[in-house]
């Protein structure tokens, strides 16, 4: 495995060095050095209904040095490439923010900084990911650990055995890089996987030992799940055939979280193949639930303008074209209300664990 690892990094390192070659060759030919970067926007993604994935298109933008509008970005791209190559050579991993600090300095004889904020360096790392077709992990850049898992699953992490059934109610914190080289799934006896949007609801389920009674794995990403959580869900789904259910708030953002888990995101469409779980199911909160579970109207929240705009955008996405989904979103728009998972506490503190989820699972009441 170690062998494979060095080989891989070598490939990425070579790609990074190749960027310097672009500049050198262009300079020799008196041409403007230019990179081609695939566009990361809705205009350049398409939904592949057969595979159930969002795929990135062929459109590219060029970034050239001798263009006043792009010169700074070009320079920044070279600096980030240099920093990433340094990571490759030293075989270290780092965070987005550290990359920002590593590449930030004041340009000689001027008052201009190479980067003013991290908002400038982050997109460049994504640009490099897509143009070099390298995963972020391969670039040795990690995100924050912001996910938790609990349930009957055993991992091997740096040689330590981690049994997620014996970690109390806090669970195991999902690392940002969960590739087999870094995290090994030794055993998994669960029947399904429940991905919860909110940490608070995950805590509720974990405290109530929901996972023990229904023999499942509980996973949360605290909002939009980070790559590590999505990738881990995908691995458990793929390697251990666990069906995946997604439990989110009933609002446009909740729907979108579900869709990212299922089909992949627009921004990182090129990663869909590795992260998306096309068979994931939407278990709740559905816009039909308030009526079915007799939630009082007063625990709803009025949709604001942003919510409405976002919901209308969702209606137009290719991957929300199934009649059931159109009906689901339109029902929310007609009611004019959104509901948080937490609103279930209005009935009982343990309503989610004791009534709502059991009934959902029994009735197989979910959307695909």
């Amino acid at each position: 495995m170690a062998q494979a690892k060095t080989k891989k990094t070598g490939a990425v390192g070579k790609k990074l060095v190749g960027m310097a070659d672009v500049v050198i060759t262009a300079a020799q030919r008196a041409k403007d050095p230019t990179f081609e970067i695939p566009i990361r926007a809705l205009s350049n993604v398409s939904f592949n209904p057969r595979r159930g994935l969002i795929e990135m298109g062929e459109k590219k933008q060029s970034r050239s040095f001798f263009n006043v509008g792009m010169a700074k970005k070009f320079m920044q791209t070279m600096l980030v490439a240099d920093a990433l190559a340094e990571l490759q050579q030293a075989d270290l991993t780092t965070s987005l923010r550290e990359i920002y600090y590593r590449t930030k300095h004041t340009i000689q004889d001027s008052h201009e900084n190479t980067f003013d904020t991290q908002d400038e360096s982050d997109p460049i790392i994504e640009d490099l990911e897509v143009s070099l077709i390298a995963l972020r992990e391969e670039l040795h850049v990690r995100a924050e650990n912001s996910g938790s898992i609990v349930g009957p699953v055993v991992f091997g992490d740096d040689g330590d055995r981690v049994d997620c059934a014996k970690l109390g109610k806090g669970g195991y914190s999902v690392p940002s890089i969960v590739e087999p080289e870094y995290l090994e799934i030794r055993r998994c006896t669960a029947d399904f996987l429940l991905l919860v949007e909110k940490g608070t609801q995950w805590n509720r389920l974990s405290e109530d030992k929901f996972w023990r009674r229904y023999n499942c794995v509980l996973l949360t990403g605290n909002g939009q799940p980070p790559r590590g959580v999505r990738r881990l869900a995908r691995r458990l789904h793929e390697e251990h055939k666990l069906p995946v259910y997604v439990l989110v708030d009933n609002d446009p953002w909740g729907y979108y979280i579900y869709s990212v888990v299922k089909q992949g995101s627009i921004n990182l469409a090129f990663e869909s193949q590795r992260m998306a779980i096309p068979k994931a199911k939407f278990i709740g909160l559905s816009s039909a639930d308030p009526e079915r579970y007799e939630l009082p109207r007063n625990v709803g929240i009025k949709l604001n303008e942003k919510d409405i705009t976002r919901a209308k955008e969702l209606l137009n996405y290719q991957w929300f074209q199934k009649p059931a989904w159109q009906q689901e979103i339109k029902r929310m728009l007609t009611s004019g209300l959104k509901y948080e998972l937490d609103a279930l506490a209005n009935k009982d503190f343990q309503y989610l664990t004791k009534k709502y989820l059991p009934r959902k699972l029994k009735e197989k009441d979910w959307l695909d």
Partner: protein
Amino acid sequence: MATKTSSPRARSSAPAPQSETTVSESVASRKKPTSREESSTAVTAVEMGARQREISVSEFFTKNRHLLGFDNPRKALLTCVKEAVDNSLDACEEAGILPEVTVRLETVANGQAPVAPSQATRFRITVTDNGPGIVRQQIPRVFAKLLYGSKFHRMRMSRGQQGIGISAAGMYGQLTTGKPVKVISRTGPRAAAHYFEVQIDTKKNEPLVHENKQIDWAQPQGTEVALEVEGRYQKGRASVDEWLEQTSIANPHVRLVYHTPEGETKEYPRTYHELPPSPKEIKPHPYGIEFGALLKMLQDTKSHTVAGFLASDFCRVSPALAEEICKAAKVSPATKPRDVKHQAAETLYKTIQTTKIMAPPTNCISPIGEKAILSGLYKQIKGEFYTAVSRPPAVYRGYPFIIEAGLAFGKGPEEAAKPQQASVPLAEGEDQGNDTEQARVIRYANRVPLLYQQSACATFKAVLSTTWRNYGVSQSRGALPAGPMVIFVHMASVWVPFTSESKEAIADYDEIQKEITLALREAGRRLGIFLRRRERAASEFRRRNIFDLYIEEVVAACNRLKGGNLPTEKLKEQLHKIASSRTGGLKTDEALGKTGAGPEGLPHSIIVTAEGIEGETEIAQQTPGSPVVSVNTAEAEPIVRPESTVKTKRGSKEKSNVGKGRSVGATKAKAGQQALFGDEPSSKKQAAPLKKKPARTTATRKRT
């Protein structure tokens, strides 16, 4: 109630005749009985009548000194200086003398240990001029009688209007320190100098002479006034210093010397050597007269017929027009003016207001003039761009007026040329020198700076309502434009409509507002053109600069990527070559505003850059003895250029011309027109509409 009504009456008719008082008494006594039954303590009309008496103007002002600008010690000090200086300037100009005024402020210890000027409460103000002097007999009344003067009864532009100012200042001094006004005056080298100490009898509004003698005085002619007043000296906004500085901007023909209480001497040299044209006195225009005034004029006229009265006592009324007005008003043209009363007078008044009458003549006002404004701004304010606009005369309420506006923009070439290098690398969230300084508005009425009540002034409102963003200057909603900018607005008129007696803000007439706005827009347009051009040049410069900066970074990054063994110099050179060809190479330099004649086709403007000045620079340069300066073609853009042979040639030509200019200085007056085009008459045709002006280095410029 009765006393209240009588006070303004007494004030308006200065030496109030006895009959006036009796009239008000009788009115009061007629009204009184109704209130008698209301309470037992009520006084009778007779008792009240006993208490009612005349109020002298001087007494009135003793109580209402804020109306004249003596609200607080700091403002009072300024008002005293202002009144004395205004009088000096008015006198000099009327006598056709280029004014030289010396202002001296000293602290007066008053028996105590001397204190710092900022702590002192008593000051001696001495203002000396080289004016015509005042004849001996008039001195007491000019300085110690309120509402006595030459300016109130005529329609002519001057700084002072009512004849209150200097005597009010004297009275203020008298009230606060008990000291008399000391005056020295000499009407010519052969006349003797007279020294007076005068005070005002506040009851009678008559002067009291304490001292009167002939003395030896070094000055051949002029007047010196010394006042001792309670005041407070503080620098900064609305200070004496600021007022004198602003005065020198609007009056570049004045040489002003100021001895500050701190012992410093500031000199504002004369930069414009012509007196403003002396304004003519005019008769009132029929539109500007009120009904009451018309009645009074009808009574006082020397004419024997109404038609004659109209034609001779008003301007712009011809005998034919007078007949026409009489006919329309159904008054016989031959009626005696004294017999036109009541209804007939009112009809006549209304008819006049509806008759179409030519606007009043405008030779009664003397604008500062674009050149003089430029010269004044240039002398006092550091900037990169100056412009001045004089509007054609306009009329409000029958009074002619002229609006002039000026702009000084920028921080001065020294600042601008400074390499903008941050001393400390910037951290996240920090900005570089992002100062949001707001523009400063300097306001003038008949050449006198207005320092107080800015927001109530029509000029200020016009500045706010102008959309400066159209001219490339940022401006938040309802605020002054932001940027290193001074906005100059001057209103010249035979009667400036102030909002109060203390002459602090110009009232907001639509016609005035409109003229100010038009003047500001024109100035703004020129500024906009200047800023856009400069921006274009700067962006082109930046464009190349960007590449130069980033090439270093990109090459360094490539070198590290390639393991540190890259021929970096070669790569840099290759990239620089591409950069230079991409930005148009040397051609860009030529394309950048180097084509036109200076000052970039903007009339009445000066542009200052690190390389020199452009525009109406003979104004800026003008010093006695070297009126003609050589011509140079436009060279302004702050672009780094390779030294070209053309430029060196120009440089040497310039030097030789300077010498020539000095030697032919005497021919200046006749060569005035030629001076615009210097010694190259051949270029006259081509440059004529653009007024190409000489340029010289900034080193020779005088600044205070």
